[in-house]
């Protein structure tokens, strides 16, 4: 099976050099052809998108853009739609994730982009969304308008299915022309979404493009980056640092580096009725996308004092992981990944030799591993791919100081706690660097309009243009109707 990735308006497919990425899952093979543009093609593409961004996209109202996006999402939610079918058939092959997990994950994810959610998304950043369409009176006097970049370049990373949707939609909502570079780990979704948008609204034909280049191909990168107004990039801190060197100083650079997320479980939630359910939710967060997301948990801090001890909680989590293994089998790992988790487990088992209070529970086939520890000084993150460390603490209030040294890397904290505790913890965690607090079981599904890494998804992209009151007043003096 062969599938072409990308979306390249104005360039004939025959004029493009295609490179093939091979994905093999069991007996099924998928060949994804990715476009390799030359400098001139990349340059022309950027010029084309910028022009369309200025003349077409910026002339649409936000309401129109919301409607178009909503229609595209509706198509992707329809399981009989050809694009949706392609997603369900090919994304498991490309990413290796279990087909059921991809299917359910897509639906859960896509429905957060329906019209009401998009409206919330905008309202989160703009009290008056009309500010994206025309100058609006400002409380301080004068008028303001929010203007999106002509060219927003996205550099995506990772393999969580559909992840580029966040920034693509954010770009659309601020009327930015977009060129996105897909990662080799999941090169398909972004291109399909672009094609689908154009199918629904042909006026958008030149407003966006989806490209690819091999990691480290700085020539291609430079050709695009020098044209960008804003660059939104995802990935490891090393690649982001490297990328920053190629972004002109006049260009806004918005990096989203690797993050670490964790869970917290209050003793009050661990009674004999609720404990197994809380553990099930914790395990679900571990299982979803095999901890490949920035919002996936690496650690759980579990408070002592409940009817079910942190040690017992670990066992509940272990069995829940075993249960999920049959419902959502872990994706097939590369040799390096398999080696990585084997090493992680070996390290835990070695550590357990000198810490008799530790417990290492793992499936015989190595598909999951839960480690219980009472040592709060060794906060080794997980080995990914369904390996989790559960640390017992006397009080959840002890957690914030433990994670504070990793401030730059913190993102989500999934919390199971009574209301008062939730709010008290949120306060200290926020200061420690956590930017998102959610329920256990929801860690991998941020709600519409969330502030990714604590930032403003839309506000970060726009520039405000102001008509100061002085201009307005002065203009009055030049009015033809002046007495």
């Amino acid at each position, binding site marked *: 099976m062969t599938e072409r990735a990308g979306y390249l308006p104005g360039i004939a497919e025959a004029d493009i050099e295609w490179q093939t990425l091979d994905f093999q899952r069991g007996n099924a093979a998928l060949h994804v052809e990715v476009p390799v543009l030359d400098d001139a093609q990349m340059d022309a593409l950027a010029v084309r998108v910028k022009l369309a961004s200025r003349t077409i996209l910026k002339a649409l109202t936000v309401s129109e853009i919301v409607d178009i996006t909503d229609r595209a999402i509706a198509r992707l939610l329809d399981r009989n739609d050809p694009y949706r079918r392609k997603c369900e058939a090919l994304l498991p092959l490309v990413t290796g994730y279990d087909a059921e997990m991809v299917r359910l994950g897509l639906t859960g994810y896509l429905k957060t982009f329906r019209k009401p959610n998009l409206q919330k998304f905008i309202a989160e950043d703009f009290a008056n969304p009309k500010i994206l369409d025309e100058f609006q009176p400002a409380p301080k006097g004068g008028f303001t308008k929010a203007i999106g970049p002509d060219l927003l370049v996205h550099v995506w990373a990772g393999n969580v299915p559909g992840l580029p949707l966040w920034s693509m939609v954010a770009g659309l909502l601020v009327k930015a022309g977009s060129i996105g570079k897909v990662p080799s780990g999941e090169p398909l979704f972004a291109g399909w979404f672009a094609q689908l948008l154009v199918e629904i609204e042909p006026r958008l034909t030149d407003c966006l493009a989806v490209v690819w280049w091999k990691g480290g191909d700085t020539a291609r990168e430079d050709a695009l980056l020098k044209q960008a107004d804003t660059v939104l990039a995802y990935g490891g801190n090393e690649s982001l640092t490297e990328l920053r060197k190629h972004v002109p100083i006049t260009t806004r650079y918005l990096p989203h580096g690797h993050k670490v997320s964790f869970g917290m479980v209050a003793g009050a939630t661990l009674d004999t009725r609720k404990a197994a359910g809380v553990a099930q939710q914790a395990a679900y967060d571990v299982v979803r996308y095999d901890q490949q997301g920035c919002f996936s948990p690496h650690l759980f801090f579990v408070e002592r004092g409940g009817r079910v001890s942190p040690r*017992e909680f670990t*066992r509940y989590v*272990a*069995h829940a992981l075993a249960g999920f293994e049959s419902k959502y089998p872990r994706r097939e790992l590369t040799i390096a990944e398999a080696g990585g988790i084997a090493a992680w487990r070996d390290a835990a088992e070695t550590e357990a030799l000198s810490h008799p209070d530790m*417990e290492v*529970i793992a499936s015989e086939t190595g598909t999951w591993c839960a480690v219980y520890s009472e040592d709060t000084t060794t906060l080794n993150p997980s080995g990914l791919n369904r390996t989790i460390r559960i640390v017992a603490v006397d009080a959840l209030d002890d957690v914030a100081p433990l994670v504070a040294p990793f401030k730059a890397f913190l993102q989500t904290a999934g919390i199971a706690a009574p209301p008062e505790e939730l709010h008290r913890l949120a306060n200290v965690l926020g200061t420690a660097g956590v930017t998102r607090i959610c329920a256990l079981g929801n860690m991998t599904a941020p709600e519409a309009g969330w502030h990714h890494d604590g930032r403003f998804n839309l506000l970060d992209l726009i520039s405000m243009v102001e008509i100061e009151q002085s201009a307005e007043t002065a203009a009055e003096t030049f009015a033809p109707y002046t007495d």
Partner: protein
Amino acid sequence: MDFRGQTIIVTGASRGIGAAVAKAFAAEGGTVIVNYLKNAEAADRTVEACKTAGGDAQAMQADVNDRDAIQRMVDTVAEEFGRIDTVVNNAFRPYTFDPDNRKRFDELAWTDYRDQVDSALQSAYNLCHAVLPVMKKRATGSIVNVATDLVARAVVPYHEYTTAKSALVGFSRTLAAELGPLGIRVNCVAPGLVYPTDASRDTKEAVKDAIIEQTPLRRIATPEDVTGPVLFLASDWSRFMTGQTLYVDGGLVMG
């Protein structure tokens, strides 16, 4: 079924159903702890039979009604073998199944009931208590409790025995509900009249014939008949079964 590398404790395994179960596990490669109360000689014979069958076995004396003794036994097993995969609660106090001379309800003292509850239930309670911390560490394990088909059909009204075994079925279901989320399964095997065993030695031919007549498979159970369902419930083949009671009585009880 393959029980190689697995450790199985069978209580009351020196004779009868327990011995047959021990041998059957050994024949599939398991390491069997042959628990017994008094008859060391019989226990040794079971151990020998287990080894001949191809598995490993060790006799361990412990009174299932003595909590400390059972704890010591489990500690020894855990230390020596590192894991306990299955526990078969089979031991029970001597009870004579004699339909002609059984006690009628008005002849029964409360202590008769209490003795049987201690026999069927306290023994299972003691061993489960001791073994669960070991099983929980691996988030897996199987507990098989030996009940009787009399709990479903009181062919002969052995009041105190059947009442206690009924309690064991309830005990098992409840434990199954609690331990399911930890990956540990609890099930019962409920045999019909098993012959020959020491307990059924005095059961009259007429009774056996009457039972045989009503049994679709037209015979009485042998100790070996009970082994298959016990091994099945211990094995991964029954991995999605818990809280169940399997009747092993040739179809006398259905459902």
